[in-house]
């Protein structure tokens, strides 16, 4: 998507970014505008995109600013508006806090959002859990004793829980996911894209978005108004 000078800046911009620990040795240049969905052919770079781990080289801008230029409060506020599905066996190694139950894990960041109450976070989480196929809600068990299928679905819940959602990073989101839940994920992706949230699909192989039912482009006038 070509941007004109009047357009808002990309929500996410990678400039010659080289990630540590990913199999792809190349550098990445990418601009992700509101409502867009793009594929990034890397293994599990989300913690580096989020500024938690350093890049080997290059730079990353989120909403026009690099992580280094933000103070702690601003950085945390921005991170709370980014939903992430981590690769189940990615370089980040942990996708859950091991001494919290899955439901506590999924809601944790939501509880730190000053704009939302705990009850609203819990209600939204349960609604998402049912939508994705967790009939009994989020598992109330420790990650170590929770089935991979339920962990995948709970990760989806955690990723879509932030409100408003500025950016969605999906690292191999379909890996280990139950087939019957995929349409619900696609519907939720399309919904958040409709609100202007861009999606970065991160996997080594490019998915067939059309086959999944994900539109390559949305109605631009609906999503490209200033943030």
């Amino acid at each position, binding site marked *: 998507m070509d941007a004109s000078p009047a357009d808002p800046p990309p929500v996410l911009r990678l400039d010659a970014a080289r990630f540590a620990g990913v199999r792809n040795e190349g550098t990445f240049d990418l601009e992700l505008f509101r409502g867009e969905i793009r594929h990034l052919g890397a293994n599990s770079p989300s913690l580096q995109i989020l500024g938690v781990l*350093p*890049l*080997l080289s*290059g730079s990353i801008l989120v909403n026009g600013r690099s992580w280094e230029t933000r103070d702690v409060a601003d950085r945390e506020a921005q*991170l709370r508006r980014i939903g*992430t599905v981590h690769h189940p066996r990615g370089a980040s190694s942990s996708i859950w*806090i091991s001494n919290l139950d899955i439901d506590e894990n999924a809601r*944790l960041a939501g509880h730190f959002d*000053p704009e939302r109450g705990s009850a609203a976070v819990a209600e939204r989480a349960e609604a998402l859990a049912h939508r994705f196929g967790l009939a009994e809600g989020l598992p109330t068990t420790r990650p170590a004793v929770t089935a991979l299928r339920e962990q995948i679905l709970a990760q989806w819940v955690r990723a879509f829980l932030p409100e408003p959602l500025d950016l969605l990073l999906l690292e191999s989101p379909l890996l280990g996911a139950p087939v019957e839940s995929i349409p619900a994920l696609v519907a939720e992706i399309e919904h958040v894209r409709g609100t202007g949230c861009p999606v970065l699909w991160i996997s080594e192989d490019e998915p067939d978005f059309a086959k999944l039912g994900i539109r390559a482009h949305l109605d631009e006038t609906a999503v490209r108004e200033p943030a």
Partner: protein
Amino acid sequence: MQGEKSEKAVAVESGGSRRFRISGWDGTLDFLALATECVIATLLPRSWRKPVRTRLAKQILFAGVEAVPFTVFAGILMGIVLTLNSYRWLEFTGRIDFLGPALSILVIREAAPAFACVILIAASASAMTTELATMRVSGEIDLLESQGINLVQFLAMPRALGLAIAGTGLALIFVACAFVTAVVTILLIGRTSPGPFFDSIFSSIVAADFVSLIGRSTVPAFLIGLICCHVGVNTSGSLTAIPQAVTRAMLLSVAATLLISVLFALVAYL
């Protein structure tokens, strides 16, 4: 734009949170910044999110409530030891009427806060450091940071405050057990009536004793919590770094306890 870095340099750099890094003088400043931020966060109502309140309750349960039986045991034993020793030497010097005041000073100002901190270090400091160091090594701290969760509020504040509350409670329980045991011991010895003995204890206690008791149990316990969080979160490398971190945290905790004890003694006696 970031400069070019080697994979190894990045791996080393990513081993510790930028906000918790400790090394040399910078590390001391980091620790002071952590302590200050922790105290400020404690005073702000917006810091007390549901997970933080839950963590505080669990910390008081683990460090305080679960340590009560051992504290009672230690209080009873120390009550017997201190009473018998004091009795023997005061009788020898002909000042047995000072038994109550001597015990109140020994128990309230010295033994209770020291034992409360020792129990916390032995039972909780090692567990806390191990937990946080494991979280760091396994990438769970990175996961928290990636979700925009404030590490000071979620990890440090409830643990440090929980230890402070637990330490104060344990010190008070220790005092109660030691005094009750002292009375029982006096009764068994049978050479001094317990009534006047108890009166002499209470008449010798002044407000400064309570300030000393609370200060010497609360402040070191709070610092023990911060030290464990600081050392645990700054652990880098592999699982083998965890035992080293635990040893370091426990030694630093003992040193902090002794330093605070000396400071309070200087203020109280000079």
